[in-house]
């Protein structure tokens, strides 16, 4: 079985930050591997270690700076990586679900994986839609919010559990090939050591632009436009206790005594 892993580098924002127009200046931003994708990577690598997956290929849409994150996936065990970037992306504020779907569709057509794994959503933008949109585009079957995947794949199907709301899980059988969006907690991602090791660096990382994938530049023009960004209005009437830890703990202790939580 061949697995294609969609890996996203997400932006992280400092506790204190400012907004300029529809952007947060770089000085307040960091970068990290998307938390959900850590679990998807671990799941793929476990399938590889169990000799179920013969090859694990990652695909990432992002500029060159994301290669540090891609190396992390390679260090965990993925065999090779594909990174998609194009000058056309630099002029736009956001790549919407349709754009990302069109790009990944071209990669799936090229790689023909049996299983595509991605995180349920990204930490930063939280669209949570590309995996399912992609499945429909490439005519694969799919399941979203998967928190258990059986490793037997009998009769060309995947047996999964989907995490529904309220502590209920749905037990579902999905035909392969399929796209599964992976929920956190499905496994325990290993600590990745040595993303800069020579062994990781030797793994192939190919970079493609839109033309390489046979796509027009117009793919980058999302129909959804980002028009405003702001800090949410604070409507709350929160009482903020200030002072040393002893003082604030004292305020809380008084409240708990008043509420007769403790005497």
């Amino acid at each position, binding site marked *: 079985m061949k697995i294609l892993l969609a890996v996203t580098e997400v932006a992280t*924002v400092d*506790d204190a930050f400012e*907004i300029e127009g529809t952007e947060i200046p770089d000085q307040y931003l960091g970068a990290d591997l998307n938390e959900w994708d850590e679990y998807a990577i671990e799941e793929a690598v476990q399938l590889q270690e169990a000799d179920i997956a013969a090859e694990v290929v990652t695909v990432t849409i992002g500029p060159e700076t994301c290669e540090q994150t891609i190396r992390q996936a390679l260090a965990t065990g993925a065999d090779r990586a594909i990174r998609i970037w194009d000058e056309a992306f630099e002029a736009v504020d*956001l790549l919407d*679900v*349709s754009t990302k*779907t069109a790009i990944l569709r071209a990669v799936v057509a090229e790689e023909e994986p049996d299983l595509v794994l991605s995180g349920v959503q990204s930490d930063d933008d*939280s669209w*949570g*839609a590309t*995996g*399912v*949109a*992609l*499945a*429909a585009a490439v005519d694969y079957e*799919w399941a*979203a*919010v998967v928190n258990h995947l059986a490793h037997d794949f009998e009769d060309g199907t995947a047996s999964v559990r989907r*995490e*529904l*709301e*309220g*502590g*209920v*899980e*749905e*037990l*579902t059988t*999905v035909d392969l090939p*399929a796209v599964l969006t992976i929920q*956190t*907690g499905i496994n325990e991602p290993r600590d990745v050591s040595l993303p800069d090791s020579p062994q990781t660096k030797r793994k192939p990382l190919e970079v493609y632009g839109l033309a390489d994938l046979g796509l027009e530049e117009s793919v980058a023009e*999302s*129909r*959804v*436009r*980002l028009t*405003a960004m*702001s*800090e*949410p209005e*604070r*409507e709350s009437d*929160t*009482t*903020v*206790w*200030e002072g040393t*830890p002893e003082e*604030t*703990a*004292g*305020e*809380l*202790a008084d409240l*708990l005594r008043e*509420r007769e*939580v*403790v005497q």
Partner: protein
Amino acid sequence: MSDILAVVDHRRGELRDVSYELISAGRGLADATGGDLHLAVISGTVERFAEKLDREGVDAIYTVDYGEEFNHGVYTQVTTQLYDKLAPQYVLTANSVNGIEYAPAVATELDLPIVTDAIDLEADDKTLTVTREIYGGKVETTVELEGPAICTIRTAEWPGGEGTGTADIEAFEATIDEDALGSSVRGFEEVGGGDVDIADADVLVSVGRGIDDEENLELIEDLADALGATISASRPVVDSGWLPKNRQVGQSGTVVTPDVYIAVGISGAVQHVAGMKGSDTIVAINTDPNAPIMDIADYAIQDDLFAVVPALIEEFQ
């Protein structure tokens, strides 16, 4: 092209609350576009559901009596066919675990733009403006688009539709291509039972990602002991395997309404807040002043939990 089509959510014989919220959100959009609000109810006891959904502001309800439970293939096929029949301007679904399992597929099939997890919607005769949150609720954005689109709405953001309506209820004859249904639901399982039901606790000390390490849980246990409280947790702590699933507060865990909820090192992601906002008194201890929990809390301490919690334990010794 000014109508709204909203597809409702149900599970195991019950309409989910968001179905009624879709009526409010859909009516608001229909008022803005000058169109009608159509609802679709797919699978299950559709006639019973349709009667319940006939509330003020609903113009028509289409029922599709096929199967009992949600199947994303069926929902995708039916929604696509209803779109072809009704030519609505906007399609709305819930941003639920099931909603996000078919809405993006509908978007692909119909080549429509999709915007997920909306917390506010505005429309005029050509533009849809959607408000959504990014960076875990620390930043709000608006996105805009022209032309027809599909949008998923966050649960518990709109009030439920009320009153009694005069909707036309009509069975819609969808054509289900069964060969194209590549997944089947074998059943459901309740998870997270066990020794403690956190929903019964009067006082919860709830621990989140800020605890950093499993070893540090001892500090939280000491606090819970000092207060005679029960320990609960947010998702990352349970995902890490540091506490069992039955301790998880939130949308996918347990909904709790204690007298006092002390959130220690919890940022307050929307999925968590959905599980604890009904608590009588909420206290947050967090270093990040912009963490959403700091707005939801009645009382907040913006400081390091490793400084405040020991001081608090000291108070009761």
